[in-house]
């Protein structure tokens, strides 16, 4: 029997995918390549092909603000990743204990996620403001020496932002985890109970490994949110006090549009891309590479 031509297999599906393929190639790949090329130029307000080699990168890595931005992103990213998973998973298991008013509780906890980062940032700016927020409430209650003003202390300001980020993001992780937990067959729970395994051990050693796909999805969502951290910072601290809460995405924007220095902005965004690629590519190869024949 003659085999059908490979090209025409699923022909209509391939036709349908063409616009997306073109978009991906021209907008994403093309745009990325363009940015990288122009990061080697002295582009100011307008892109210009005036080569300066690695000058932009040299300036970038000698700029204190950029170094601080990278450090902040690392602190925020690692803390966020760990805490949002722990909090989200604990909340999900608590709700999974067949509590009453589950829908109400779930909605309340997920609700912050429906707010934009700008609203979140402003709300937490007020809550953490020493004159109107938590500090003044506790002082009014009698503890007059109580001090809690993370946004005004350059050393810990990034954690003030982290609190807001956690408040906003935990609900989503919880809901995803809850969906994962609900997807676990009840028979497994029964079997574990028959064997006399305590509930926490069942969660840790049986349920979590079974929820791997849910964890991967959540991880991708959370990490992409961390890398593009920008609006929360702008709304909550504006990068301050001083340069204590600057992040890379804000550096890129400020360079491109505030300083009219496209080249420097491109160099910074290329470095962001390289960092993400260094993390994502090995992980993706490990995760998806081996499964082709599996």
């Amino acid at each position, binding site marked *: 029997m003659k085999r059908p031509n490979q090209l025409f297999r699923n022909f209509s599906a391939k036709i349908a995918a063409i616009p997306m393929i073109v978009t991906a190639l021209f907008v994403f790949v093309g745009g990325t390549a363009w940015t990288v090329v122009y990061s080697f130029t002295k582009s*100011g*307000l*307008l892109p210009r092909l005036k080569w300066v080699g690695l000058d932009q990168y040299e*300036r970038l890595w000698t700029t*204190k*603000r950029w170094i601080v931005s990278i450090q902040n992103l690392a602190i925020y990213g690692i803390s966020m990743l760990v805490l949002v998973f722990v909090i989200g998973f604990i909340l999900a298991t608590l709700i999974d204990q067949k509590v009453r008013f589950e829908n109400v509780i779930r909605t309340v906890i997920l609700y912050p996620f429906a707010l934009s980062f700008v609203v979140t940032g402003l709300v937490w700016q007020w809550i953490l403001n020493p004159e109107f927020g938590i500090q003044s409430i506790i002082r009014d209650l009698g503890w007059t020496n109580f001090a809690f003003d993370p946004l*005004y202390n*350059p050393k810990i300001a990034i954690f003030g932002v982290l609190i807001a980020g956690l408040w906003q993001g935990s609900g989503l992780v919880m809901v995803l985890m809850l969906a994962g937990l609900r997807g676990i067959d009840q028979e497994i729970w029964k079997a574990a109970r028959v064997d006399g395994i305590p509930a926490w051990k069942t969660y840790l050693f049986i349920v979590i490994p079974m929820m791997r796909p849910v964890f991967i999805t959540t991880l991708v969502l959370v990490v992409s949110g961390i890398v593009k951290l920008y609006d929360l910072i702008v709304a909550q601290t*504006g*990068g*301050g*006090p*001083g*340069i*204590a809460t600057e992040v890379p995405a804000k550096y890129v924007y*400020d*360079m491109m*549009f*505030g*300083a*009219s*220095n496209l080249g*420097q902005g491109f160099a910074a965004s290329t470095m962001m891309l390289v960092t993400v690629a260094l993390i994502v590519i090995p992980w993706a190869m490990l995760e998806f590479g081996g499964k082709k024949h599996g």
Partner: protein
Amino acid sequence: MKTVYKLLAVATVIFAVTSAFAEDLEVMHWWTSGGEAAAVAEFAKAFDATGNHWVDAAIVGGEAARAVMVSRITGGDPMGAFQFNHGRQAEELIEAGLLRDITDIAEAQGWKDVVNPPTLLDACTVDGRIYCAPVNIHSWQWLWLSHKAFEDAGVAVPTNWDEFVAAAPALEAAGKLPLAMGQEGWQQSGAFNVMMATLVPQEVYLGVYQDKNPEIAGGEEVAKVFQAAADARDMAAKSTVQNWNDATNLVITGQAGGQIMGDWAQGEFAVAEQVAGTDYSCLPGLGVTEMLDTGGDAFYFPVLKDEAQIAAQSELAALLLEPATQVAFNLKKGSLPVRGDIDMSAANDCMQKGLALLADGKILPSTGQLITPDTTTQINTLFTEFFADPSMTPEDAQKQFVSIIEDAE
């Protein structure tokens, strides 16, 4: 159906006819605060009176507005006219040939003879051709003082910077904030530049920003300025406000002793119905060296193809420097007019001081005319850091400042 087509046809004809006379011209700017909007309305009124129509496209925030303007011009969808600050912001757009050369209008209107100081027109000029119409002068070198704050503290209202610094402990003892300062880079570096322009000889300011001489930037005189900035940092240590007008409000209500801010702060005092001399004082040049810089705003005109639009642009350009428009606009804006030959007797005390200095030629180019937005941003970042972190010594800050000036173009 036929009637509909007929109506449409008639409507098109009418539209075509009217548009030959009255042209809609889109004008972009970032004048959105109360006083600013009132001022720009004067331009719109004058332009509408010529039979054209001013289509107002205001965008909040200079930085956001500049980003939109540039992307529209470079993206091939230019507006009729737009506002920029005097200086180097538009340099590259001019080099790329995207902005209209209005030398013919400037010559027909005799701008060279009336614009005072002439440096304003120089800032619009690239290779001998004029590309923008300056509309006002804003200067940075002002110290605003609250009489109430000093009365409460029981000390006399200072007449210069040193007296102000000396009065700071008394203010603090009375529970006042000595110096109000918004926690934003442009305000902090602005205050520093004011000190550099006024507390040390003028050659230092020009040596640093005009000649970009790293030796002067690292020299003793600039070290003095950094020391003064450290004084200011101590005096503003408890200032937690962000916006410049919130800081001005602290001075208006007597919660703070003073603020270093440009003459746009004048508008806030006017809105609060404060009287210069009795409720507040304004000291040009911090009361030390009475000097003003000549920054401000100008209108640029992108290159267009439509003849009717080009004609409307020309009309607007000529109109902006008419004596009547200049007076109406600048009184509302609180800025100084760009021509010295008009009657500004309606202006208040502080504005009169400014006009007198202008007439005497006690002026400096603004930093925006001397350094690029890139360098400005670097300096802003340095001062944001310096003012937020009391452990950063003036010597460290000066070292960083020198390396910024070394790289500046």
